[in-house]
């Protein structure tokens, strides 16, 4: 059972406060969506939880299964079970997908266990087939020269192979055509389980037609200003964000 519990998290980037005593709880088995206008702090939340070095955490806690992630190294957080699917996956020339995922799996293996290459490739190929990724991609350099859609599929492939406890999807729908969106969503949905939680960050309600959330939160100026069920996303889509800003100002 993996619950993500963020409490009073404040985060600066270059002395500018982006998250201001942000709190959120995503119980195991649930999918929560965070929506909000540009600059509201959605991506900062995901980067800060993954301990990106450019983000300074000023205070607060972020617990995964009772373990406080704040202060841990990015790789320790990953091995503790938090996976972040990047909005803009980074290109790493020369490092092949197969070698990279293998290294990531080996990094979380106990020393006593031995890595079975045959099983690994069987699983990798199966998941690539599911996500509609050509098997030739195993020997391509990670994200190097990939189209936007290929990069996003590759993120979901890594997520599926690493079997994390909790997944954050940062604008996974951006740059996807409708077919890719379907495939990627199916990949995410197949990973939904009673043990695993998801936080889905998006601008658009469209993604939530495919990955149906249990809850929707609206973020504005570094805080959650409204929460509701999936209908909230539909409302935002038709009305835009301005009505929330107006309500807050009132």
């Amino acid at each position: 059972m993996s619950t993500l519990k963020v409490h009073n998290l404040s985060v600066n980037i270059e002395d500018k406060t982006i998250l201001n005593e942000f709190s959120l709880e995503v119980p195991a088995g649930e999918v929560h969506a965070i929506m909000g206008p540009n600059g509201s702090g959605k991506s900062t939340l995901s980067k800060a939880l993954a301990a990106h070095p450019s983000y300074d955490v000023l205070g607060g806690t972020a617990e995964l299964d009772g373990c406080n992630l704040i202060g841990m190294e990015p790789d320790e957080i990953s091995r503790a079970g938090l996976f972040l699917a990047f909005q803009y996956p980074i290109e790493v020339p020369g490092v092949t997908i197969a070698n990279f995922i293998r290294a990531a799996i080996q990094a979380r293996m106990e020393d006593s266990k031995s890595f079975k290459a045959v099983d690994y490739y069987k699983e990798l190929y199966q998941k690539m087939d599911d996500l509609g990724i050509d098997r030739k991609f195993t020997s391509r350099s990670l994200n190097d020269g990939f189209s936007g859609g290929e990069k996003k599929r590759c993120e979901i492939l890594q997520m599926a192979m690493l079997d994390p406890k909790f997944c954050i999807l940062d604008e996974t729908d951006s740059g996807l055509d409708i077919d890719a969106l379907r495939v990627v969503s199916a990949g995410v949905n197949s990973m939904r389980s009673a043990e695993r939680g998801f936080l889905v960050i998006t601008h658009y309600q469209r993604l939530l037609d495919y990955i149906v959330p249990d809850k929707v939160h609206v973020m504005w100026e570094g805080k959650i200003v409204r929460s509701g069920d999936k209908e909230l996303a539909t409302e935002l889509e038709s009305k835009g964000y301005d009505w929330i800003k107006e309500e807050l100002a009132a």
Partner: protein
Amino acid sequence: MIKTNPIEVDRDKGNFHYNTDYEFDAGIGLSEDVVRYISDVKKEDSWVKDFRLKALNTFEKKKLPTHWATKDLENIDFDIIRYYLSKGQMPSRTWEEVPDDVKRTFERLGIPEQERKFLAGVEAQFDSEAAYSRMKDDLSEKGVIFVGSTEGLKEHPEIFKKWFGKVIPTSDNKFSALNSAVFSGGSFIYVPPGVKLEQPLQAYFRINAENFGQFERTLIIADEGAEITYMEGCTAPKFETSTLHSAVVELVALKGAKIQYVTVQNWSNNVFNLVTKRAMAHEESEVRWIDCNIGSRLTMKYPGVILRGRKARGEVLSIALANDGQHQDTGAKMVHAADETTSNVIAKSVSIGEGRSTYRGLVQMPGHLKHCKNNTECDALLINSDSQTDTYPAITVQGEDHSVQHEASVSKVSAEQIFYMQQRGLSEADAMSMCVNGFVNDLIREFPMEYSVELKRLIDLEMEGSVG
């Protein structure tokens, strides 16, 4: 790659030293007497002794090339170096006959296993002379010669004299002159016409004594249509004072011959490694230098090919890793001297910590030639913000119908790449290693398999402690 398995091969592998009694010792410092001593001990013909004495004179006259090269060269103290140390002149043909202390050293470095596994022949040089030299019997029956230079001069003077010093003249540079004066050891190889060696020949160069200078001299001749791969490996213990390694390697590829020369150098951080390597490529022949430089305090090495026959082909593939306190000054020279000759240079360098790598390239294509081609790619990867790289390509092309292509790039492992890889669970050091291995990977694939595995491990070890 990521789990740090107990590693058998590493930078410290060569860092051990057994006390050794030397039967022959030319003493400390350089003089005519030292040169005469070396020549007398080897019982050389008078032409060799004269050649040496003339070279000594050239060495003394030549200045250090500090007008273009690093001033660190001035820190070499030629007066405290020992120029010749050996236990005897003739190498053993079986491991049993090798003196115990020398045998222990090479066994620890894994030489006999490698011979059993994948080599057609091995020569193991301990300080000045080969301690062991052996080649598979069927190759000697085909007329292949694989001996040390001392033995080559004695047993095969007619071939040796014909090519010796013809590719690299004594006066080429100060260090080729020094080598010509005091050379000892190295390999002499002759492959008869049409003989193609399927397995590589290997030489292993070991510096054992402190304040010692190793000056091996290698001469490889591949006769018409012959093919050979030669590999060399080098180590030395870490002494307090610096050590000098200054080799001269000459290759001759006659019509249609192919020579591939592979170097994996893993010197300790106090070695001045100043090596001159050049090949003469005749008609339709092919010479390929594959060169990997790890370790040393200063390496200066620019393997070259003189393409003097029509359709000759030269290639240099080079990897250099410069860590803290190291300067890898490497590159390539391609001198086109006949029509339709082609050359290819791919050089990759990685600078770690305060390490510095320099690429120097020379390509010459004179106007009277037709249809020559050169491709040069040099890529540098910087790991830390203190790391340094510089590139000096000199390409001179005259005439109308040549084709020249030059690409250079400098990249730095970015913080975003490392963060991305860490987010998947890799430690910072492992992420860094993967980036570096990824950067050099396409070149490492060109190495013989046994070497590429060792190389990857060496790179991982160099990366340890390089972050943060």
